[in-house]
């Protein structure tokens, strides 16, 4: 986590709020979070792109021992998700009990609170996923 920082949170907001990633103009591969150099072909020509909002769960787990700042939310589920446009990312699954999750279930993006920077700090938001 490092020190709680407002600017560090603020500069990523567009990407975190709206699932905006990168697409390589040369090979077409998509990434989240956005990047400057393509991992696949090395090209530096990447554009911002709005990623698909639906996908499926590749793997998941329930976090029971939290890091700092997530104490109030435990237990919560994190998952590796593959969006319908091929982008893979890591996020939380919400509105679901761990027993209801299976690998492969379809999920849709939803805007949620991630945590607070301490009780009197700013609120951090992001995209989580819930079962369709």
């Amino acid at each position, binding site marked *: 986590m490092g020190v709680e920082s407002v600017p560090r949170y603020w500069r990523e907001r567009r990407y975190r709020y709206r699932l905006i990633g990168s697409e390589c103009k040369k090979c077409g591969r998509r990434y989240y979070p956005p990047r400057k150099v393509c991992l696949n072909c090395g090209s530096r020509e990447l554009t911002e792109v709005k990623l698909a909002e639906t996908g499926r769960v590749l793997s998941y787990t329930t976090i029971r021992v939290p890091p700092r700042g997530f104490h109030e939310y435990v237990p919560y589920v994190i998952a590796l998700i593959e969006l319908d446009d091929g982008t893979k990312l890591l996020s939380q699954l919400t509105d679901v009990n761990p027993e209801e999750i299976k690998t492969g279930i379809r999920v849709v993006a939803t*805007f949620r609170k991630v945590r607070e920077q301490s009780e009197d700090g700013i609120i951090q938001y992001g995209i989580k996923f819930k079962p369709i």
Partner: protein
Amino acid sequence: MKTSVGVGIVGYGAYIPIYRIKDTEIARVWGRTRVPIEEKAVAGPDEDTVTMSVEATKYALRRAMIDPKEIGAVYIGTESPSYAVKPSATIIAEAVGISDEILAVDMEFACRAGTTAMQNIIGLIASGMIRYGLAIGADVAQGRPGDELEFTAASGAAAFILGKAEESLAIFEGSSSYATDTPDFWRREGEYYPRHSYRFTGAPAYFKHIIDASKALMSELELRPSDFNYVVFHQPNFKFPLRVCKMLGFNIEQAKPGLIVNSIGNTYAGSSLIGLAATLDVARPGERILVVSFGSGAGSDAFSIVTTDLIEERKARAPLVSELMSKRKYIDYAFYAKFRRKIRMR
């Protein structure tokens, strides 16, 4: 109040959290034997007024089919903003892709703040200052544990994108607003839960303002209750809206589609607007709806809305209120207390 230029609803959306707690469960913990409604919607631990508003707005955008960047104003009416000081409107705007060139503001007037936002947006569009505007009514209402209000205070949001009448699925025929200094429900700075004045919130507050606003509107538009297909009132519980219905001369059939409090509770600034969304979900073209909100403190906004041919095709583009209501997960009082931060952590 009428506008010189026609203004209407271009898109609408509602959002109801998935969690529900039964009133009998709350009653179990606090020793009550009679409950005012069946169950209420509870925001999850990662939800707040901003997150619910974003989801409702996304649904409204689906129905409106406009580029978010064309929205010129974002007004959110709520009494439970995510911050005491820092606008929710700007976070919502960023989250749905609305541009920086907007008039954005949070408004407070208890449960009528959503319709008050709507009044303001109507004015901005009618004046030609903006092309489209977004009005949201949303709350994660908190009730003092064990108090009457805890049985009904619920979470929900509704978003309305307004624009010119020609592009709308429903058009505003006229509106009226009524406000007096009536302290029936309030919350002081630094207090976690609100207070209310029990039976005083009835006749001098809820009934007076709704009746006066409704009568003023119907008089100006020369309309009678029978001219309306539907009526939607603010719903603090099941009894009040039905009683005011009778008092004004409406019948229960007109109120049914918009009467959702028994299943989701009182979503405060979302209440009458979610009721309106539920009514639009079933309305056919050419039908007239009366919507009257009530906010403690106190005031009411009343609107007469007539649907157009565009309603059928637009409503199908996003989840109906009935679909949102059918997605439910029941929680007990322990999880309810955990989710709604009623447990002391420090």
